[in-house]
């Protein structure tokens, strides 16, 4: 079968979008789970939970699509990366189990609500930290031999991965705070504005440290960042990050309802672009490019046809389900 079109860039875009949607959507509801732990009493915990109860399931589905999309479009990367982060993935999955069942169990099980409150909060914290470690391990790269991961299951334990783990806690916390400001009023919102600012400080600090650390860690990334004319072409990214961070800081302080969430999204988009610029075109850093790891054209074409039809439909009805549950949430109504 002769292919007129190179499908790899298209799949890179689709997968990049799917992963970003996951980070954004489950990011804010994991962040809500983290901030849930700081809520002072049961009514505010109920309110916080109710802001995401009807939609968390759909948000988490993007994780499945991200994983399966990687398997489908770039199977070699899937077969190398996932074993390399064996334990972070395990911990993430187990933590997601606890926080996921907490939605129903907490509501059905008034006697043990405290236990499931803990499960929800700690599950969110641990899942986020594990995802951050996966990110850090990915940026650092893996030991590879042939078509397989050649390191041990404990290679992920590095200072850099610990840093990205902590960074993502602040990052998701920031998204979660933005979401809570959007969906709540009164004391819950006031607390979210305060927590959001703390998370913003953490995020800015983490972006700074990662940006200084990364070029020291990888010569190729250093070369890409600092060579002329790249340094001029790429300069807008850090500048835009600083501007968005400053606007976010102001948004948390004012009475703006939507801007803090948009600001958090902006920071995630910029960080995401930063990582993509640094690693492209590698999908297994230092070893395999997107093209080398890609599945066959037949496979990519077969899946692309359906994806191009289904993805817009999914976005439409997912949008509708968000619209059904629009507006501010209160603790006493809306649940079941």
């Amino acid at each position, binding site marked *: 079968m002769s292919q007129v079109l190179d499908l790899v860039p298209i799949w890179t875009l689709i997968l990049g979008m799917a992963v970003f949607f996951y980070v954004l959507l489950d990011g804010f509801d994991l962040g809500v789970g983290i901030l849930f732990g700081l809520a002072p009493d049961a009514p505010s915990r109920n309110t916080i939970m109710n802001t995401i109860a009807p939609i968390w399931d759909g948000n*988490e589905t993007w994780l499945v699509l991200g994983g399966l999309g990687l398997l489908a479009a770039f199977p070699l990367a899937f077969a190398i990366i996932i074993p390399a982060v064996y334990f972070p993935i395990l911990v993430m999955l187990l933590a997601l189990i606890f926080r996921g069942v907490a939605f129903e169990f907490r509501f059905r099980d008034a*006697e043990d609500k405290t236990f499931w409150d803990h499960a929800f909060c700690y599950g969110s914290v641990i899942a986020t930290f594990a995802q951050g470690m996966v990110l850090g391990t990915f940026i650092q790269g893996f030991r590879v031999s042939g078509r397989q991961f050649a390191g041990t299951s404990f290679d992920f334990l590095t200072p850099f991965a610990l840093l990205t783990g902590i960074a993502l806690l602040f990052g998701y916390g920031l998204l979660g705070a933005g979401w809570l400001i959007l969906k709540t009023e009164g004391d819950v919102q006031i607390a979210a504005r305060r927590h959001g600012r703390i998370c913003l400080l953490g995020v800015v600090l983490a972006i700074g440290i990662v940006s200084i650390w990364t070029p020291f860690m990888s010569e190729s990334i250093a070369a890409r960042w600092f060579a002329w004319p790249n340094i001029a072409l790429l300069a807008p990214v850090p500048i835009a990050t600083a501007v968005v961070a400053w606007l976010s800081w102001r948004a948390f302080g004012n009475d703006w309802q939507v801007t803090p969430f948009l600001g958090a999204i902006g920071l995630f988009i910029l960080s995401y672009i930063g990582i993509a610029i640094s690693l492209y075109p590698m999908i297994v850093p230092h070893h395999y490019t997107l093209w080398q790891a890609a599945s066959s054209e037949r496979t990519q074409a077969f899946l692309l046809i359906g994806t191009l039809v289904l993805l817009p439909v999914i976005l439409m009805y997912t949008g509708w389900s968000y619209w059904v549950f629009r507006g501010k949430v209160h603790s006493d109504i809306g649940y*079941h």
Partner: protein
Amino acid sequence: MDLDPVLLSRMQFAWVIAWHILLPAFTVGLGSFIAVLEGLRLATGRNVYVGISTFWIKIFSIAFGVGVVTGIVMPFQFGSNWSRYSDATANVLSPLFAYEGLTAFFLEAAFLGVLLFGRKLVPPWAYFVAAMLVALGTLFSSFWILAANSWMQTPAGYEIVNGKFFSTDWLAVIFSPSFPYRLAHVVVGFYVTTAFVVLGVGGYLVRRQPYGEEGRTMFSMALWLLTVLVPLQILIGDLHGLNTREHQPAKLAAIEARWDTERRVPLTLFAIPSDTAETNYLTVEVPWLGSLILTHNLDGEVKGLKDFPVDQRPPVAIPFFAFRIMVGCAVVMLGLVLVGAWLRWRGRLYDTRLFLGLVQFAAPLGFVAVIAGWCVTEVGRQPWTVYGLLRTTESVSPSLTSFDVAISLASYMVVYLLIYPWGLFLMLRIVRRGPKHSDEEGSRIEAGRPQAPVLAGTLDLAEGESR
């Protein structure tokens, strides 16, 4: 027994998927049941259907929640423990998995939110549509995952280049030889499983409150469905068996513990098969019946395991016994359905307390049959992941040590043994409270320490500066 990473990875996969499959086995049927109830409510305007539907939606929400989070575990198993399998089969199988996500998971997730929280927010017709789409999502999911599983059992439409599978014909990949039979057998099995749960719960409610309309209606609906589906399932199972004989003769030989290829084989009711001695002990057999059932011909030939090299035979005991457990369940189910039909005909369906009590014990029967059937088909496929082409031992991730997998397996065991009984307990409590119970009363009960934050220590730290 040597606990190498392959065996431990197999145990881990068996563990996470066996627990996971219990939930689709229930939610596929329950999703459809809820959609039917909402449809009937829309058509007849009778409130009894709302009562039954709301009652089952509460149970559905717990089962579905656990199903989602244990389902997310599954695709990652392919990467974490079976990376060589992933590398070899991705070009063929991954689109099937991805299409499951695209056609099923998003549909279920988006409309489940409306089903659980939106009854007062959307018009009744939209609520019905949401229920239908959730049900449809569960069926799409079954379609794709069974297409993938069937391809691993009876691969078709592929070529092998450098040890990797590539598709040559997508329709042949999706509709591989065993797929239609497997799909029908599994989906009907899921419906039967759910119907027995509804029947058991209905029986319980009728016993407790003989004139409660909700209990009687669900009891009757479940029994009608089972009266059709249980005989149908036995028929489909028979056809599925013929298909296995044609495409996976070694699996059939293991199921029947046949060692020698023979005609006019007996039906082995019981035996203790021995892989090493290549024979059976303590056999109880019915002459000729084996050939009749397996080939639909008294003189039919059934292949024996000795026709296959030792390293290409599945272990015999597990498929052999699991198959007998599954068929045993079917026999009991058929008996119950026949008795139920007779009672209905005599007009004594709702006041035969013995039968109402009996069906309560039969409620888990479908789950037993599903797990047993799954053991038959998956262990019967061994020693292959892709039948006859890719060995299980060549599918595992090379970087894993026994220690790694032992830790992950133990973790999954602890977590699942906590979550599942807890979920079951909560579902049983909803059943005990019955359809008349409203959530508002329940949610007023507050316990624990409602006035303190979960992260009390962290909070003091974080708030230090602002106070």
